[in-house]
């Protein structure tokens, strides 16, 4: 009987000791009470007409998140790992809105990002604003996305107003450099938010610059035949053709223009479809001499850019495009924000986002030198580069030509198109 009692006391002692230990353990490490995971809702067009770019965005973001998590996650949150929860918008605004509601209410995400298509991002940001969830927009460039007075929307890419500004600066520099007058312009653009936004910017600048607009034509991106449009361009006979296209239509227009032998003095794309890696392979030599405006090019002269592109290429088999870079960078901006927010409270994240001042790390593979947001949530420093598609002995490639400081050494742009 006595022996049994001792064992009993010993057991109670051990139990008490264990209890105290575990209490001490708990109070010592508050991190245990913190969530081990940051959930990020990512709405992208993973099927439908923009599936190609949607996948590229996804791959760039997956790579960034892998790197961030492998480097120890968010240290100020006890090494919390970031999880991307994907939702497919199919490029449809209503689908994007519904998915945002689902991600916020059901998945309880802490941050939203996406949606690539401006037309999807625009209504979707209204959902995140209503719930007060931070929304990081990597690439949707429609001006109005950051001009809604929302406090939850932050955009990495230059807005389309700036794209337009730089395209016209390029047109005027081109005339000076080659001493050739360009007087007539044709605008051809997809009839979504993005195309229309760009075109309204072109109209104002064309008026200011004294250019004559000989054609102003929206077209549906789903058009199965571009020859009517190309015939119209041919008959309008512009000096400069400005385009806003998604991938399928960019390829089709370029090939059809070659068929009908339409040759304006310069053709200027607006990124998007023209920057899609499959554009170069599918349009081939028909794309020769086309100018395109982009956020980023593989020959950009920034530390780390080459290595990150090489890693991406070995992983997925093609080069990073400007939009993938913005998508990649957005993940590092988010990681930096979470690090400083030290909390998953949306308010804290929003405050940290507004105070972003990123000047180093993998995010700085962009062409400019810092990421900071202005009062509307727009990245103030985002800047653009003009490239020309040409074959200088290594197959078709995109060569940086403007601003002159960023031009690839030894390259002289071909203008007008021979």
């Amino acid at each position, binding site marked *: 009987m006595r022996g049994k009692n001792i064992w009993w006391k010993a057991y109670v002692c051990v139990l008490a000791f264990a209890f105290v230990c575990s209490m001490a353990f708990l109070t010592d490490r508050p991190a245990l009470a913190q969530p081990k995971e940051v959930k990020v809702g990512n709405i992208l067009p993973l099927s439908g007409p923009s*599936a*190609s770019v949607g996948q590229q965005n996804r791959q760039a973001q997956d790579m960034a998140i892998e790197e961030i998590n492998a480097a120890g996650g968010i240290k100020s949150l006890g090494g919390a790992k970031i999880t991307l929860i994907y939702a497919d918008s199919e490029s449809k605004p209503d689908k994007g809105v519904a998915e945002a509601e689902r991600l916020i209410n059901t998945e309880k995400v802490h941050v939203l990002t996406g949606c690539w298509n401006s037309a999807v991002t625009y209504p979707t940001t209204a959902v995140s604003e209503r719930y007060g969830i931070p929304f990081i927009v990597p690439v949707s460039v429609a001006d109005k996305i950051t001009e809604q007075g929302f406090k939850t929307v932050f955009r990495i890419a230059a807005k389309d107003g700036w794209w337009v500004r730089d395209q016209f600066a390029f047109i005027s520099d081109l005339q000076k450099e080659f001493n050739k007058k360009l007087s007539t312009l044709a605008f051809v653009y997809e009839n979504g938010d993005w195309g229309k936004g760009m075109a309204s910017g072109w109209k104002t600048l064309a008026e200011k610059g004294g250019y004559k607009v000989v054609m102003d034509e*929206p077209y549906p991106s789903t058009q*199965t035949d571009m020859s*009517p449009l190309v*015939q*119209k361009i041919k*008959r309008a006979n512009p000096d400069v053709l400005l385009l806003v296209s998604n*991938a399928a239509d960019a390829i089709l227009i370029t090939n059809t223009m070659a*068929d009908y032998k339409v040759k304006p003095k310069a053709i200027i794309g607006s990124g998007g479809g023209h920057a899609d890696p499959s554009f170069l392979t599918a349009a081939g030599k028909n794309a020769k001499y086309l100018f395109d405006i982009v956020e980023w090019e593989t020959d950009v002269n920034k530390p780390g850019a080459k290595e990150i592109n090489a890693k991406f290429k070995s992983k997925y088999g093609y080069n990073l495009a400007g939009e993938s870079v913005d998508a990649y960078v957005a993940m590092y901006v988010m990681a930096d924000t979470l690090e400083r927010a030290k909390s998953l409270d949306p308010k804290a994240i929003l405050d940290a986002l507004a105070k972003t001042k990123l000047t180093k790390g993998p995010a700085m593979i962009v062409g400019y030198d810092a990421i900071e947001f202005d009062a509307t949530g727009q990245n103030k420093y985002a800047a653009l580069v003009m490239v020309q598609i040409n074959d200088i002995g290594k197959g078709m490639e995109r060569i940086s030509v403007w601003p002159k400081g960023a031009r690839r050494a030894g390259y002289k742009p071909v203008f007008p198109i021979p």
Partner: protein
Amino acid sequence: MRFILEDTINGILMGSIYGLAAMGLTVIFGVLKVINFAHGSLLMVGMYVAYWAVILTGLHPYLSLVIVVPVMFLFGYFLQDIIIKPIFKAEKDVREPITVIIVTTGVWYILDNLSLLVFGPQYRNIQDNPLRGKMLEVGGMLLSVPKLWGFFAALLTAGAIYWFFQMTRTGRAIRATSLDREAASLQGINQYKMYNLAVGIGTAVAGIAGVSLVPFYNIFPSVGVLFDIKCFIIVVLGGLGSMGGALLGGMIIGVIEHVGAQFMAATWTEAIVYGIFLVFLFLKPSGLFGVKYEW
């Protein structure tokens, strides 16, 4: 004036390819009385088969028909036999088997996403084929040679299908099934086999349409969606089940797209096409050559 003539001819050429794409849909509808929502996907499969046939064998795109047509016929035949037939049997007492329509929608999604998985989202086209970028210059007018080939392919296909359904025993058996499947069964016709054949033929025609598109068009997983709605409009315009109607309906749409685009934005020509579609639904729901049948 020359511009309008040029646009009209180009419109007819492209339109006949639309018509060819719609012909498979109209064959399947005519026999099964089922709107095949997977038709665009069948067209997409046809384009991929043609693409790989040309890439791997280096054949002239139109010679690849010797591969594409049998492959697509078998694909359609077994798609019907394995996936759609069981649903048909379950619904055999119903005059218009609605669930089959839903199944075809499922097939559409499965095929599109499968090709996204297998082939990836890239846009492909055949860079050096003998037809690519060829233009014919007639009196200052530029006509696309690959589309001209497509035009003749459409005419021949329409003629061949018409001949098959009118002149051959099997064709007549399929038609008998389409008119009254009970009565046809009583005559000893195996209606399910006829259905298999009809879907096989419709799919093979989608394959021919794929071949005619491949020399100048992009190939990507959701390419069918772009043609889907157009095909439905064409089929309604021309009359459900009518080959000539599909061809004419396609040409009407092609001409509207080409000529209309010179006077207004391309967005508007699309609105006009849908407008005409609505007018037809109101005034002549059976289409140009459709038979108003009521059994």
